[in-house]
């Protein structure tokens, strides 16, 4: 499959990286030759220098043959025009654009075949914001991911002594909390994946992934560790797009302090936010953090655009006594380094988020959602089952009869508005959204094949 990526910035570069590694044919366009050179030397991709929205540049980049266009330049307007040009001149099949400005991205009436021809809008900053928001709502969780418009969530958390289920077999879960339906999709013990059965015993320090309806997540979490008090006071370090978006989204629910180093940006933040308190200063200024009573706050989110500051300020916050520390880290090497650090509770990688968002669009089966987990080693997939009993290998079959590749579990099925937590007897119907958990990424291709409708082959 040929993929055309416009813009070799952070998102474009990382995307090209992970797609090229998945053996897609990637062409990257940017107007800055030095950036192209840096990426081109590292990856096996084609690079084209030029203005990303110009038709001649797009033709040279192979827009006519491309299956998917991903416009991720820094300018929303260039992205929109590029999608329009590809639609009008080159009939590129699928057009995905990154739009940052909410004024565009939130206006659904703007987009469609007859209007601005963008099939999917991605906004990694907003996705990061949403993730942090979910994590703050569930103190103790390592990851909270949405499926089926948020009806179902996948949560990852570390088991601690004090949780009622720790040290016991999983099958007691149903007797402990009979009103809640959940399914533990996978357990990672010292980095090794375990596919859980009813007899699997949860041990302390296990990282457990489980799937449940949105409203049940908290009670399941209570089984694996002592329940945490809900967060109230939150400090956000960094008032960039993510920091501002986060503060704006949650300032009615929490007491927010947002620390911004640049005074003019701080002024801008103060104008845009209503309840949040804007502090002008460096997030690594220990005295200032103490003066602002950081030890009294429940959560600390380091979301500046500087990894070093994020990491250092997070370590400091944890040392000063903050309960939950969430850190944004861009550099892959740092992500790996900090992931298991006891000082940082959750590491979020914006690149991983952006890639997750795009991966769902490049897969062959009808995949609604992909979340890349554990730094890309595992994946949670929401896939739509199509066809009939004859043409599909899943529809019309009970879950226990479906031949799943090894290391894969079905967590839940969403049928219309109903959430069915998967167990052996559930029958898959056409148009069900099936949420799968894949421990071994090598199995992705087999899963794609499993869900493709047979008739398409003819």
């Amino acid at each position: 499959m040929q993929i055309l990526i416009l813009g070799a910035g952070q998102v474009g570069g990382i995307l090209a990286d992970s797609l090229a590694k998945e053996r897609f044919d990637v062409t990257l366009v940017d107007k800055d030759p030095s950036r192209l050179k840096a990426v081109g030397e590292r990856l096996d991709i084609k690079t084209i220098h030029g203005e990303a929205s110009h038709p001649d540049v797009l033709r040279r980049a192979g827009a006519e043959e491309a299956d998917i266009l991903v416009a991720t330049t820094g300018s929303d307007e260039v992205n929109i025009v590029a999608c329009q040009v590809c639609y009008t001149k080159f009939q590129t099949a699928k057009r995905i654009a990154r739009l940052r400005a909410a004024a565009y991205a939130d206006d659904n009436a703007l987009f469609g075949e007859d209007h601005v021809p963008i099939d999917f809008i991605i906004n990694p900053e907003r996705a990061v914001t949403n993730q942090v928001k979910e994590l703050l709502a569930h103190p103790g969780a390592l990851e909270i991911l949405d499926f089926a418009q948020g009806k179902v969530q996948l949560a990852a958390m570390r088991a601690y002594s004090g949780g009622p289920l720790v040290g016991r077999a999983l099958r007691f879960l149903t007797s402990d909390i009979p009103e809640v339906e959940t399914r533990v999709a996978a357990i990672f013990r010292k980095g090794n994946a375990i596919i859980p059965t009813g007899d699997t015993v949860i041990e302390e320090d296990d990282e457990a992934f489980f799937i449940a309806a949105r409203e049940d997540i908290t009670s399941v979490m209570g089984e694996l560790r002592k329940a945490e008090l809900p967060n109230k006071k939150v400090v956000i370090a960094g008032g960039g797009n993510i920091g501002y978006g986060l503060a704006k989204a949650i300032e009615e629910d929490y007491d927010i302090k947002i620390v911004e180093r640049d005074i003019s940006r701080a002024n801008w933040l103060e104008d845009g936010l209503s309840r949040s308190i804007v502090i002008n200063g460096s997030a690594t200024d220990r005295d200032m953090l103490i003066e602002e009573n950081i030890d009294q706050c429940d959560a600390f989110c380091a979301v500046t655009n500087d990894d070093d500051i994020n990491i250092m300020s997070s370590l400091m916050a944890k040392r000063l006594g903050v309960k939950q520390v969430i850190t944004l880290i861009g550099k892959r090497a740092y992500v790996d380094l900090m992931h298991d650090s006891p000082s940082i509770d959750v590491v979020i990688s914006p690149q991983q988020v952006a890639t997750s968002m795009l991966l769902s669009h490049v897969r062959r089966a009808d995949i609604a959602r992909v979340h890349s987990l554990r730094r890309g080693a595992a994946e949670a997939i929401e896939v739509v089952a199509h066809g009939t009993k004859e043409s599909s290998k899943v529809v019309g079959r009970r879950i226990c009869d479906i031949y799943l590749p090894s290391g894969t579990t079905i967590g839940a099925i969403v049928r219309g508005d109903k959430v069915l937590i998967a167990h052996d007897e559930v029958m898959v119907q056409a148009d069900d959204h099936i949420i799968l958990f894949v421990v071994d990424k090598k199995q992705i291709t087999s899963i794609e094949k499993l869900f493709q409708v047979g008739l398409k082959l003819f």
Partner: protein
Amino acid sequence: MLLPVISKLTGVLLTYFSIFAFLVPACVAFFYGEIEVSVFLTSFLVTFFIGAALWFYFREAEEFRGAGGFLLTALFYVGLGLFGALPLILSTQPGLSFSDGVFESVSGLTTTGATTISGLDSLPKSILFYRHLLQWFGGMGIIVFAVAFLPVLGVGQMQLYHSEASGPDRDAKLTPRIAESAKFLWLIYAGLTLICVISYFIAGMNLFDAICHAFSTVAIGGFSTHDQSFQYFDLNSVKLVAIFFMIVSGINFALHFSVLKRKNPLLYLADAEVRTYFLVLLLVSLFLVAVFQFRQSDSDANSVDHLFQAVSFATTTGFVSSELYLWPPIAQVVLILAAFAGGCAGSTAGGIKIIRVLTIWRQGAREIKRLVHPNGVFHVKVGGQPVTEPVLNSIWSFVSVYIFLFFFSIVLIMTVSDLDFLTSFSAVSASLNNLGPGLGMVGESYEDISAPVKWILIINMMLGRLELFTILVLFTPYYWRR
């Protein structure tokens, strides 16, 4: 040179004013068969010819520019105050002296509602009507009226409009063209008056009273056709109608315009100033109810009266529905103080205006926040929008000058007369805030105070109506040296 063009425009405005303000009451006099027909016709002829003469003599004058609007507006209010007094002085009933006549006419034009007449009930209908008509013109503003309907004013309209508009944000336009905006404002104003007339009539007033009181209610004026003001109508229905229309008229008319245009009444509650305005009215009313709960008094006022007085004074209308002098002193003082906050900017109400009070309150809160968070960044925000430093400064200087003038006038009055502090204090705040009734010796009417005091109060009424600077700028050397 400014003089010719200012003289010409004053002439123009006087000419038109004479037609609207004198001929209509003349018709009323004719309708009721009163001899005041001749009084109004004389006033009309005098004013018309002086106005027309000025207009004719300076007809060649160029259009004016820049800050001339302040001078014109100020002059025009002075001119109207003087000429407007004519019928009141010429008529045998009430047959006022020069000072009293000007006091009455300025009190009308500035929508203050303080009166020097006792025995209103026995006055000719046409004179009563005329007083209310003056208030009605003054409510939305004569200049706004002129900008809307008199194209002869030429290009300086924007300046003129600003010199009369109220509130810190005088640039707010409803439509791209200022004349168009002014027209919409007057249409809303006239429509509101009409509905008010009908409501009063249904609630139990006779048609004449309904029209007159609708004029003085919607203008937030406070004149009444009866000495007893609203005590005369001992009907809760009438009082409730008055309460409703006073509240509505105290809201920014530009907001009324938006609500009508978008057909969404929720916009009222989305406005920070209106929310604060409602809160002030509520707090004052509750306070009065509480006072009557815990203090003895000889007044038989019920809770409708508490609400009525709270709204009437806090909006600076000045209607009275109860024997205020029987109320506990604290209730009286709170009513007078409530008038300082006044109504919303861009309404017909007087006072400092809610938006300024709110902004200063927020600024105070910011200073406290700064003490708690030395590194914090805090802006003064109203309705989620930051208030810029120049606007903050202008609000502060307005309020400081307002307070300074307030005390200065009290001292001045007590110097030139033997009035006690309560009387002077309440008379000045009633004039400066365009409220009307005071306490002590000026509780019922202003007829017993001396002429110098009246002139001080007249100036206070003008300063209050034109929001200080339009008048004060004329007394600075900077203005004349330009």
